[in-house]
């Protein structure tokens, strides 16, 4: 990915002196530091980890050896427990993403339909969770869902239940937590693509006798789809790789792949096998992003790159 072979600028700016030949190259040079940083600090380490997965497990060592083996991958593929973990991770992510998509559309439409003067405050409400640490947000849900938390206190105060109903440390809690974390990330792209819809299009449909629901489902939704696809991609891959919410709200063994990875790297020090789990996580989430990229073409691509 060297940028030295960048083509000279073809855009000719009218008039002026003939441009020096070094200028285009000069601008290409500006790209070098960032390329080096991303390459050296992300691409190289990531490749190293992926390579480490092909070494036999030696707890505590990180050096690559020439002893190549697929034993780690075989262990992963032949152990039902790991399949269950991957299955559960995908299941929780799918449920979260589906709920996010539905509710995100509702929120985006509600912001879209309010007067511009009041939009700012609604946007701040929707985006505020993003700017609060995920730990804080998860803690907030612990306070809401806990045994003496808001919901249980309310229900017991109203005399509806005698003893606290266990709302924490189960799959439902993890989904609620993830939904809260990722809902804003769904609203943003959907809202952005709604705002590009020409308002006269739904009006025309209305004039021609379409009902509200028809307009929403058959005109607005298809037009908003690039944002929706981008949102689904983002939310799904982030859910797959979320750690804090499952670790704090799903109890010690929430059975998500990330908690398993954490165990391998921090508790058992089996870095070689951990690398295989990392590869699997990366493969699953990247496959999805890749599919979205190529399935939905250039518009979605720009969307994801510019608005992730």
């Amino acid at each position, binding site marked *: 990915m060297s*940028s030295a072979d960048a083509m000279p600028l073809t855009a000719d700016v009218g008039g002026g002196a003939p441009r020096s030949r070094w200028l*285009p190259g000069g601008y*290409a040079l500006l790209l070098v530091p960032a390329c080096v940083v991303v390459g050296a600090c992300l691409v190289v380490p990531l490749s190293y980890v992926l390579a480490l997965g092909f070494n036999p497990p030696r707890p505590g060592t990180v050096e690559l050896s020439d002893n190549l083996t697929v034993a780690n991958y075989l262990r992963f593929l032949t152990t039902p427990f790991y399949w269950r973990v991957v299955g559960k991770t995908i299941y929780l992510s799918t449920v979260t993403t589906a709920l996010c998509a539905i509710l995100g559309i509702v929120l985006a439409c509600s912001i879209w339909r309010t007067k511009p003067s009041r939009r700012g405050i609604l946007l*701040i*409400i929707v985006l505020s969770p993003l700017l609060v640490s995920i*730990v804080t947000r998860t803690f907030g849900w612990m306070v809401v869902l806990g045994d003496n938390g808001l919901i249980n206190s309310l229900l017991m105060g109203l005399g509806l239940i005698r003893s606290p109903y266990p709302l924490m440390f189960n799959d439902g809690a993890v989904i609620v937590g993830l939904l809260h974390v990722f809902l804003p990330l769904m609203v943003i792209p959907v809202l952005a693509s709604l705002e590009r819809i020409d308002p006269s299009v739904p009006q025309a449909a209305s004039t021609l006798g379409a009902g*509200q629901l028809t307009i929403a489902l058959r005109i607005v939704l298809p037009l908003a789809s690039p944002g929706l696809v981008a949102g689904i991609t983002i939310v799904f891959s982030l859910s797959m790789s979320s750690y804090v919410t499952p*670790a*704090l709200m799903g109890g010690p063994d929430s059975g998500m792949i990330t908690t398993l990875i954490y165990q391998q790297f921090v508790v058992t020090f089996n870095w070689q096998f951990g690398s295989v789990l990392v590869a699997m996580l990366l493969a699953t989430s990247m496959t999805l992003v890749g599919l979205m990229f190529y399935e939905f073409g250039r518009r979605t691509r720009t969307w994801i790159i510019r608005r992730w």
Partner: protein
Amino acid sequence: MDNTTMVAAVQRHVFNALAWTLYGFLLAPLVCIAIVSFNYEPVQSFPPTTWSFRWYASALQNAAFVNAATASGILALCATLVATPLGVMAAMGLWRSQWRGKPFLEAFFISPIIVPGLVTGISLLVALAAIDVREATIRLLIGHVLIVMPYVVRTTMASLSQLDPSLQEAAETLGASSWKAFFLIILPLIRPGVVAGMVFGFILSFDDVNVSLFLVDARTVTLPISIMSYLQYSFDPSVAAISTMLIALTFAATVILERWFGLKRLFAGH
């Protein structure tokens, strides 16, 4: 006719009720944290019977939290200061290049956001351990530069895309050096974008867990991670007090950002 307006009205009311429920859902945990932080009792209970500031005092006297907050602040600041020049340079380079591979380069600069934070953290841990760098501060700084840089690139690109590329040439034709043209003309015009990227990157770096999780050590811990480990074995309102302070700070920053740049263009990850 009456019937259809009835149906439409019902639809509208249901929709609005659902939307307001969702706004409540988004705000509920944050509001609850604030309420709990003023509760005198050590166990969280609703509604609090006695109000007090004592948890704020105990949070501010907790050496572990204070040190972690300082570490997080310094780390986020350093990461932002390193990442900003890199990001602005990259954005300028992308802006001026007509190269066919430009979208790929753009994707390459944004890739640290797309790769899961946990994976970034592990990769850095393993690769740096392999070349015998086990200093947590260095590991964290590298990881956090990767967190901040993509946002600076993106917001700067957003600002640049609204400029006329011939501005720079015009200045240069009139005899300014490239540097002078950049600092006197381009930079003042794109300042909102650069600042927004810096502020946003700072917040994300300060709040990060996924990347830092594997890079901290016993002596250097960031605030979110120290809160998280605290939560895993105890549960008192001092965490709520810290969280409330953080929420207040980030809300202030958010309002300023919205005024300055318009939040919608920041498109966050976490």
